[in-house]
């Protein structure tokens, strides 16, 4: 433990030293919800010099899932004979007509699972139920869906389908940079996505946009070291790709998982909250597996749903505003009664801010709301 503290001090020391020589203030983006929470939890933001910022990007799968996809899940769950299996973090995301949790309260058969194979086992055990698996997540989670679908094929199941909302992180990073609405000086790349894709996947960001990318682990020392490395690269005006999580991440990643993903899915355009439609950023079933596609089985298409009024989750996950700049934050949108997905998800930026950075702004906001109840009612 003493060694770890010493390492942390050394990393922060390097960060502060490199920051002194920065020609201009810099902002780096982390694109993994686990990094967002870990950075807040270990107090990294409070130790950073004034000219270095770490902003959150579209790295939380629940937060980037479009409102239309969520409404589609809720509508499916309410159909008779359907059992909807979901990871726990989707349960409380609010759609146009409530959340999956509320649908369950209203009699829908919604079950929380830990592993995609649990949904397949359920379909095998209950052949009269039509099991729909809500397949959400980035590359870390996609192989799990691919395996589940192949297992359903092996078992010859006809009552198992998956509603695929999987996303690919690299096209989103490119879209973010191409939009020119976000100014970042480098990326802290996601550790466990990279475990599957390999860190080489981010080489294109370095080459094309001349921005440094550093793959980081999730412990305080690892995050501080990655940030220090990013600041050093910015100081030296060097666009390079560094892997600071070598114990888990290799250059080419988990080839077996990649092959499984490629076998089952093909890239398609996908809609992201806050970013809109991004080419090749989502996944759809290849024709061989199309019978497992919920959308074609149930003849359902994504609903073009508006986001909740006043909610700025789309701006938050693209670093166009901070949670504190959203009028709903910590006033009517709280972890107990969340309005937007960034407050629902345990790795959402708004929930992280609520837990760890609610100083000043939100207290004032709450007092304001108490003083002016009519304003709260309007919100």
């Amino acid at each position: 433990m003493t060694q770890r503290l010493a390492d942390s001090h050394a990393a922060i020391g390097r960060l502060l030293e490199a920051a002194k020589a920065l020609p201009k203030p810099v902002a780096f983006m982390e694109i993994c919800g686990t990094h967002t929470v870990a950075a807040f939890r270990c107090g990294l933001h409070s130790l950073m010099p004034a000219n270095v910022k770490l902003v959150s990007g579209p790295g939380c799968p629940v937060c980037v899932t479009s409102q239309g996809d969520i409404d589609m899940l809720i509508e499916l769950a309410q159909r008779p004979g359907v059992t909807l299996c979901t990871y726990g973090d989707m349960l409380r995301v609010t759609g146009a007509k409530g959340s999956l949790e509320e649908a369950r309260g209203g009699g829908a058969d919604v079950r929380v699972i830990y592993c995609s194979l649990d949904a397949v086992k359920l379909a095998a055990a209950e052949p009269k139920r039509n099991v729909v698996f809500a397949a959400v997540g980035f590359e870390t989670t996609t192989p799990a869906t691919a395996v589940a679908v192949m297992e359903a094929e092996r078992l010859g199941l006809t009552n198992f389908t998956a509603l695929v909302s999987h996303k690919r992180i690299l096209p989103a990073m490119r879209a973010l940079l191409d939009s020119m609405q976000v100014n970042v000086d480098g990326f802290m790349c996601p550790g466990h996505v990279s475990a599957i894709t390999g860190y080489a996947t981010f080489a294109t960001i370095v080459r094309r946009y001349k921005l440094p990318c550093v793959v980081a682990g999730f412990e305080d020392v690892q995050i501080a070291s990655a940030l220090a490395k990013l600041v050093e690269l910015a100081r030296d005006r060097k666009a390079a790709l560094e892997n600071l999580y070598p114990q888990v991440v290799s250059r080419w990643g988990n080839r077996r998982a990649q092959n499984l993903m490629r076998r089952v899915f093909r890239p398609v355009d996908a809609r992201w909250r806050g970013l809109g439609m991004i080419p090749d950023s989502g996944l759809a079933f290849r024709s061989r597996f199309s019978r497992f596609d919920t959308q074609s089985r149930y003849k359902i298409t994504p609903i073009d749903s508006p986001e909740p009024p006043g909610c700025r989750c789309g701006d938050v996950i693209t670093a166009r505003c901070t949670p504190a700049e959203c009028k709903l934050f910590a006033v009517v949108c709280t972890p107990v009664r969340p309005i937007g997905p960034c407050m629902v998800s345990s790795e959402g930026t708004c929930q992280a801010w609520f837990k760890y950075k609610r100083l000043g702004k939100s207290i004032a906001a709450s007092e304001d709301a108490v003083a002016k109840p009519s304003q709260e009612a309007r919100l």
Partner: protein
Amino acid sequence: MRRKARCSMCLAVPAQVKSCDGNDAVVDLHGNRVRVSTVLVPEVKEGDWVLVHAGFVIQQLSAEDLKETWAVLDDLERKGGGL
């Protein structure tokens, strides 16, 4: 450690393989015995340290790397969830 059903996130947890059975393995996840799939990393064997995400082993780890991770988790537990 409470097992959370929150895993469309990219959260992954280290665990030690206790026994293997085809494409499945039973791992020790900080004191809990959990059955996971090894289909993404079929070469794992008893005694190996692995990274588990949403019921799947996604990577093998060296025992050295793990000491630090567990030190952090133990520390968190002692301090009631905060660093």
